[in-house]
């Protein structure tokens, strides 16, 4: 007797790539402006790159200069006009009118002594917090750049920082996978939790796995993302996200997103359609673009087509941009271009329509 045909499982809808933008340098971070008109990004050339999404064809427009080293972080002001950018030489900058004629609203050339590791903006857009290699954590007024609070002499190197939506606390994640909670004002440390596995030490190298902190759900959940490092010298780690119950400071849920060659979660964002969009980057050529429903451990979409994805952002209309790295010139040879030039690697930006968009066309 023939088996009865199995009902066909409906494949979950997948994001659809709309177009790809080129960028001649590598990017660390990309965001959509609050108005939705512009895609802004920063990276290894220390300039803020801008793509006008409202032009007939998406084109790159003039860069905003002023930074040094690398732009290490960039965030837009929720509901506002400012873009905050930080670099590896310690400069912090607020740029106004980024979607039109940009001007620097305020800046601190030495907001930190060296690499600003992390930058986070409060939900109301009125404050931002930065953490640097100099062991300082600082809260700034978004409006005029005034220093509002400061945690000096953090006991270890901070990799990630976030400010609670109620602005009564900041949280840091350090090289050793330790979360510290500081109350505001005052900056007193009021709690400490170690995320086991998010630190690895061998051969005189500490590898920090806790690289991204983000509050969610009106501050009831703290997302701790990065990886569980397995080696030194290479990006070998199991990409990992912990969702913490913030009031209890306990892990509520954990997702380990793939094999150890996939490295670390570099960026994530909540999508208005009710899922997390995540990118990872590990060994050269390895990278994932994942979509994950809350409470799930397995993503419902996982693409490894792009190489070493370093940033991701969600547009107000649901589109998702993923910055990746080019696949060539990753190795020991002195690979040159056709003209014989030794060129830098670069970051293509892939713009996707959200899953299910076949039914509802997306502008752009």
């Amino acid at each position: 007797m023939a088996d009865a045909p199995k009902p066909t499982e409906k494949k979950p809808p997948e994001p659809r790539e709309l177009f790809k933008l080129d960028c001649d340098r590598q990017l660390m971070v990309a965001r959509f402006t609050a108005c939705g008109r512009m895609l802004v990004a920063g990276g290894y050339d220390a300039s803020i790159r801008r793509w006008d999404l409202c032009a007939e064809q998406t084109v790159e427009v003039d860069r905003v200069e002023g930074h040094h080293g690398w732009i290490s972080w960039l965030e837009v002001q929720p509901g506002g006009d400012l873009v905050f950018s930080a670099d590896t030489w310690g400069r912090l900058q607020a740029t106004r009118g980024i979607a039109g004629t940009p001007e620097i609203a305020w800046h601190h050339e030495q907001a930190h002594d060296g690499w600003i590791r992390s930058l986070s903006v409060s939900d109301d857009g009125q404050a931002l917090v930065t953490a640097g290699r100099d062991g300082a954590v600082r809260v700034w007024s978004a409006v005029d750049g005034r220093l509002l609070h400061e945690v000096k002499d953090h006991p270890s190197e901070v990799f990630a920082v976030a400010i609670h939506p109620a602005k009564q606390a900041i949280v840091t994640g350090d090289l050793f996978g330790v979360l510290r909670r500081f109350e505001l004002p005052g900056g007193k440390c009021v709690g400490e939790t170690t995320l086991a596995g998010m630190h690895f030490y061998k051969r005189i190298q500490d590898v920090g796995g806790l690289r991204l902190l983000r509050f969610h759900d009106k501050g009831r959940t703290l997302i701790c993302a990065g990886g569980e490092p397995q080696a030194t010298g290479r990006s070998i780690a199991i990409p990992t996200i912990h969702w913490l119950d913030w009031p209890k400071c306990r892990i509520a849920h954990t997702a380990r997103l793939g094999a150890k060659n996939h490295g670390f979660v570099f960026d994530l964002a909540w999508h208005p359609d009710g899922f997390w969009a995540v990118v990872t980057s590990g060994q050269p050529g390895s990278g994932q673009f994942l979509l994950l429903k809350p409470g799930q451990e397995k993503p419902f979409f996982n693409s490894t087509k792009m190489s070493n994805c370093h940033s991701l952002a969600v547009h107000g209309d649901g589109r998702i941009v993923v910055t990746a790295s080019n696949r060539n010139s990753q190795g020991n040879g002195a690979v040159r271009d056709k003209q014989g030039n030794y060129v830098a690697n670069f970051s293509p930006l892939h713009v996707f329509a959200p899953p299910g968009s076949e039914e509802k066309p997306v502008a752009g």
Partner: protein
Amino acid sequence: MNHCRSWEHGWSRRRMLGAVAGGAGVAGLGGILQPAAAEEMARNDKQILLIWLDGGMSQLESWDPKPNTPFGGPFRSIPTTLPGIHVSELMPKLSRQMKRLAVVRSMKTEDANHSSGVPKILRGQPRNRGVTYPYLGSAVAKLMGPTESGLPPYVWVKPGNGGFIAKHAGFLGAKYGALALGDGKPPANLVRPDSISAAADAARQELRRKFNRQFADRRRANFNEANSYVYDVAGTLMKHVELFDEAKLSEKDRRRYGTHDLGRHALLARRLIEAGVRFVQVTSYGWDTHGDNFNSHASRMPKVDQSVTALIEDLYDRGLDERVLVVMMAEFGRTPRINGSVGRDHWPNAWSVAMAGCGIRPGTVVGETLPDGTDVKTTPYDIGHMFHTWFSAVGLDSAEAEYMNGTQPLPIAHDDMHKVDELLI
């Protein structure tokens, strides 16, 4: 077309003597150098300390930063005590030692692989003459022998396992291999148990030597030499067990050097040098930063900065800088281009080597790379140039001294290369 070089035809009186001496089986310093040179070397009190950063430290995150350039990476450069010279911000302590250091920024070598590149660099990559050349430590052990301390001439302080590493010696023969102190620990069971009296131990050793002689009659000399040598080394070390007594270390020294592997091993190296070991190599593994290069260097470089600075300070404070040559290097540098894994790959095309102490002109920076660091702008130097320079710094004339492999004379450093005079006092 004549490809022969003058060296291959130049049968000098010195070489003839060496060949005859070698052929006649004169022991001297290993029976290869001519006796007069051997005696001279035995009086030479110079020593070498090599800090080997295995895998390849980035020149851009250390000695040759290119901030704010396409391949410069995230870090700043900082001024040093040498006017106009900047190094990476990851080396604040070494930046203040710059007047004592010499740096070559124009290293250009050939091999971009670890497996073949490490031995080539550590052997000085001489021309291929069908023999396996010794590593630098074995070469020095052979050419200079032990100091008057009688301690083994080549000690390798390394993470992981120890033992006697004969293969470093190449054609010189196993006895010129490295005594490797795994994790800086002495060989196991070094101290004579209380249950064995000194007299009983001496009797046992004499019996061993007798058996060895009988064994040796039927086997190749090199093998037996090495076998006996290991026992002799153990005997010598037994007289110096205090070298490994960490309780004798001051808390201040521990703090200055660092409690990490490199700090502990560099501190042991200083003590071995003070005790009279001719050549000490300290190895730090894990510098092959194909991924996460900048976080890796941010974690690693401060440890190098701390321990190497402490070492240089101590050598100067104790007047050992006139006697001890310190070299810090790897098998190559790292690519200017940053890969998608935020790493740097292997780059022998333009990298840096640092040195200080005996015979070296302090406060010297030799060579320059292009503004973007992709190639050497000035005269490129290979590892052979460095071998000539280092041999010269410790009083060996590498243009004259040579090995005798049986009746085959062999230069001790690449015969097409020469010492770099700018680096020498």
